[in-house]
């Protein structure tokens, strides 16, 4: 009886074991399935993650009413990961009259005196950068470059004014940039930004009934101010790591 029981138990165990081993055996996936499930880019160069980026920047404002501003400054970023970076940016500005501004100076000199049009003096922002798009492109089918497209949000302050008058304003900013790596440690960055700040656009000089000169400043309004900048990003350390 005992022997029969032992035989039955052993048989049952073998059958169960065989069944279990068969059930746990994973379905063999094809190479194509594994490729489709894997990352789109394998063993990528980690061009950003864990690196500092120092970037001298020049640019100019866009869509200005009366004064256009050339911007010069520097941006310092620390790339926390391949996708995220945090940084500081500081600008100074040199301004000149737009075509409309020049026409007004010519046609209405009595209303437009020096410093009647407002422009940016300097600006500083703390920024967060997110990079969801990375890729490569070939120029003339020969030279291949790595690049990324990134979004920027930040907040800071700017000083704008007319002549010697200066007004400061809180300045939220958002932007979109393209970073093209010319070497593993250097990139050319083109960025389009929107700075939102409060500014009195112009002042108009008029004479009252008694013949006295009266200066009427326009009301300060929150508005969008666009800028296009180009920078040379230098990365530290110069050699990137290679990912899995």
């Amino acid at each position, binding site marked *: 009886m005992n022997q029969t029981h032992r035989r039955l138990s052993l048989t049952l165990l073998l059958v169960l*074991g065989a069944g279990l*081993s068969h059930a746990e055996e994973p379905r063999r996936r*094809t*190479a*194509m399935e*594994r*490729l489709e499930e894997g*990352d*789109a*880019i394998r063993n990528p160069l980690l061009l950003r993650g864990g690196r500092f980026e120092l970037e001298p920047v020049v640019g100019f404002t*866009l*869509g*200005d*009413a009366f004064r256009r501003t050339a911007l010069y400054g520097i941006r310092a970023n620390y790339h926390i990961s391949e996708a995220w970076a945090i940084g500081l940016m500081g600008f100074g500005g040199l301004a000149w009259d737009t075509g*409309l501004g020049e*026409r*007004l100076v010519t*046609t*209405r000199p009595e*209303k*437009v005196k020096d410093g009647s049009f407002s422009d940016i003096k300097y600006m500083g922002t703390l920024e967060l950068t997110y990079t*969801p*798009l*990375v*890729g*490569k*492109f*070939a*120029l*003339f*089918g020969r030279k291949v470059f790595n*690049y990324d*497209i990134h979004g920027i949000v930040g907040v800071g302050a700017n000083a704008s004014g007319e002549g010697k008058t200066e007004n400061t304003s809180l300045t939220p900013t958002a932007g979109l940039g393209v970073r093209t790596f010319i070497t593993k440690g250097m990139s050319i960055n083109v960025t389009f930004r929107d700075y939102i700040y409060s500014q009195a*656009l*112009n002042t*108009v000089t008029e004479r009252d009934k008694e013949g006295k000169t009266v200066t009427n400043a*326009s009301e300060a309004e929150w508005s969008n101010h666009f800028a296009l900048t180009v920078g040379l990003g230098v990365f530290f350390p110069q050699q990137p790591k290679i990912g899995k």
Partner: protein
Amino acid sequence: MDRRTWGLATLILFAAPTLSAQEMTFSLDDTGGSADAPAGDPVAGDDGGAMDFGVIDTEEAVKEQARSKRAENDLIRTIQHRPFLRRKRAEFNPFLGSNVNDNLVNLFVAGGNLNFHLTEVMAIGVNGGYALGSETALFDRVIEDYQVFPQISKVLWYGTLHFQYAPIYGKFALFNSWIIPWDAYAVLGVGYTKTELDGHPTLAAGVGQRYFMNRWFTVNMELRDNIFNEEYPSGSELVHNLLFTAGVSFFIPPDFEYRTLR
């Protein structure tokens, strides 16, 4: 025992293990072996009837991994095919857009491109657009503050004949999951622009990008400067009508074939 009995006993003695081994043989499929594995390879061969108790055969696992890697590498061509070919295909590209450099007039533009791609990088085509314009708040402000009526050039429609050259071809990965190929092109053309004031010969120059969604459909954006000489009451002036447009393209024929070397 007689000679016949001895002979039978000898036959059974030698034949029995062989028969037994044949009954326990696993097929190549069962053992995961490969039909083209080299002779003597334990993976492909008969295991002599050994029973599998779920012990991992590390040598077999390594070989399986190597086989898998070879299969993956076979999928990667030495020279990758471009996912999109344009040569001898026509492209129809409706678009919408707006001007970006005039702060006195807003233009809303609807139009289209019709291109024929001579090669993978060169194309000729026509471009045209119809514009609806409106004055901005700044226009009113200038009148109010300075008692001046600003001179503006409001475009009604335009058309150009152009040459397109696409020297940049690239791809990007979205969230490291989807790869989208694209190209970038420069365009140069001549044409005609009709404004509210007059009609003018026009020089067009621009840059654009096409994102390839499948074999016949792309999403496009373009920045194009239509340059003409406007005759204002106070004199003539060169006007840059800088337009940003976004649209889609349909390629005809909708499919293409690779021509490979024989």
